[in-house]
């Protein structure tokens, strides 16, 4: 009986928007392909080259390890120094960027602007600029890592500061603390844990970054990539890669353990 009065089947919604988005993405990728001269036939032609390259990389030249240990230590030292300097600089700017500490938009907007600005320039380019300024060597790399760590740690930290429990802050205000006391007793205890965690995370990232800074002359083991590739000593290149992988994995393991145990 009621089948005669069934409502009509609704019309499907228009899909023009989806089709347009799809077309736009295809267009973007296609023009990117043209622009970069992407040619997967060239890749297919190059595959034997890659095969030969990988073949020459095995077995790695184990004796080369002793030649690059000093450079590897330098890489880690650079990461330690860069992370530490960056973290020190990050503390004041993180407090200035946090809405609940700085209070005034005239403070936190400029502070965040500086942070965003710093984070736009990739570390290797910073290193190239610092090499031009200070000359070749690890200190150019350390300054690049400092600036990079500063941006990363400050951003993560100010987000944590903004998420803290306002209760202790109000308590500090209530007892009439001045601003520094207020930060010391209200903010610091709440963000120490996350801050140390971000410090260690940034250190992990910096070890990886420091390993390639040598390519622009900013110290560390990266220098040896060009040296060995230029001389077509691919078995030595693979020693560098393996050594770096091993060190990175060990450091990741240690920092993860430290974070699990103490934070």
């Amino acid at each position, binding site marked *: 009986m009621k089948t005669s009065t069934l409502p009509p089947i609704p019309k499907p919604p228009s899909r023009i928007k989806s089709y347009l988005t799809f077309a736009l993405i295809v267009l*973007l*990728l296609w*023009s*990117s*392909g043209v*622009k*970069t*001269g*992407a*040619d997967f036939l*060239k*890749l297919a*032609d*190059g*595959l034997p*080259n*890659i095969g030969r*390259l990988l073949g020459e990389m095995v077995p790695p030249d184990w004796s080369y390890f002793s030649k690059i240990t000093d450079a590897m*230590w*330098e890489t*880690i*030292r*650079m990461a*330690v*120094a860069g992370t*530490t300097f960056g973290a020190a600089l990050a503390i004041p700017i993180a407090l200035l960027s946090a809405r609940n500490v700085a209070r005034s938009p005239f403070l936190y907007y400029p502070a965040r602007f500086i942070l*965003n*600005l710093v984070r*736009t*320039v*990739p*570390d*290797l*380019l910073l290193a*190239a*600029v610092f*090499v*031009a*300024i*200070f*000359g070749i*060597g*690890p*200190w150019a790399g*350390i300054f690049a890592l400092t600036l990079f760590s500063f941006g990363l740690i400050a951003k993560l930290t100010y987000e944590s500061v903004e998420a803290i429990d306002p209760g202790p802050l109000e308590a500090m205000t209530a007892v009439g603390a001045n601003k520094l006391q207020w930060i010391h007793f209200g903010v610091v205890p709440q963000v120490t844990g996350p801050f140390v965690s971000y410090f260690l995370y940034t250190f992990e990232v910096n070890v*990886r970054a420091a*390993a*390639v800074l040598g*390519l*622009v002359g900013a110290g560390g083991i990266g220098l040896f*990539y060009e040296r060995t*590739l230029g001389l077509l000593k691919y078995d030595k290149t693979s020693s560098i*890669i393996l050594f*770096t*992988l091993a060190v*990175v*994995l060990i450091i990741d393991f240690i920092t993860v353990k430290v974070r699990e145990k*103490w934070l």
Partner: protein
Amino acid sequence: MNRTRSRTWLALAVVAAVYVWAFYGLPAASFKETAGEVTGNIVSGLFHPDWDFVYLPDGEDLLRGLLDTLAIAALGTFVSAVIGVPLAFLAASNQFKRKWYSWPGKAALSFLRTFPEIVMALLFIVAVGPGAFAGVLALGLHSVGMLSKLYSESIENMETGAMEALTATGANRIQTIRFAVIPQILPEFLSYTLYRFEINVRSAAILGAIGAGGIGTPLIFALSTRNWDRVGIILLGIIVTVTIIDAISGYLRKKLV
């Protein structure tokens, strides 16, 4: 109380030892006498950029370099998404009857993540010659490590009810993925892909340092020829481009999830 205190002292001693080791081993910071002058030049270059370099009718200019960089990042991201999606299913533990079947996939991804993209680019230059295409391949392969890990985590955290329902209708494995998995995770996948694109724009900017295309090449050239006004305009160009891309991508990601 006493034990925690001795542990704190031990921790402090270890940290102190690390710092002594780190700073004692570094060469004393000795800078070129010209350091101050060069810094001044670069800063003044930032404020008096070489505007002519923005567009040159015949060849290497800022706009082309930036477009090249964006193209490398876009295509590299696309390549890594295409490789990353199937790998993500191989690395997701809830896609197998036994958990450890996903371990080889997870290990491969963690290897790719640790292998620096710039070293991959060096290897691809040997294979396909210098230029942007080597950069695309390096970014594509390196990004798989992170992208596919994020994908596989969202597969692992997905509600499996719809998969069960599709299996019950008699759908095969591929059909189940197509109808129950993909629609659920697509927005998250797209969001991660955009996020990785933001990172890849930065990565593509450095690839030029080793001859793999993009804006890095003219920057290194300008630095080595001490053309500070040009360094200034290139740095400005990178800052503006990255800021715009981050803003657009951030807006799209907010809309997606």
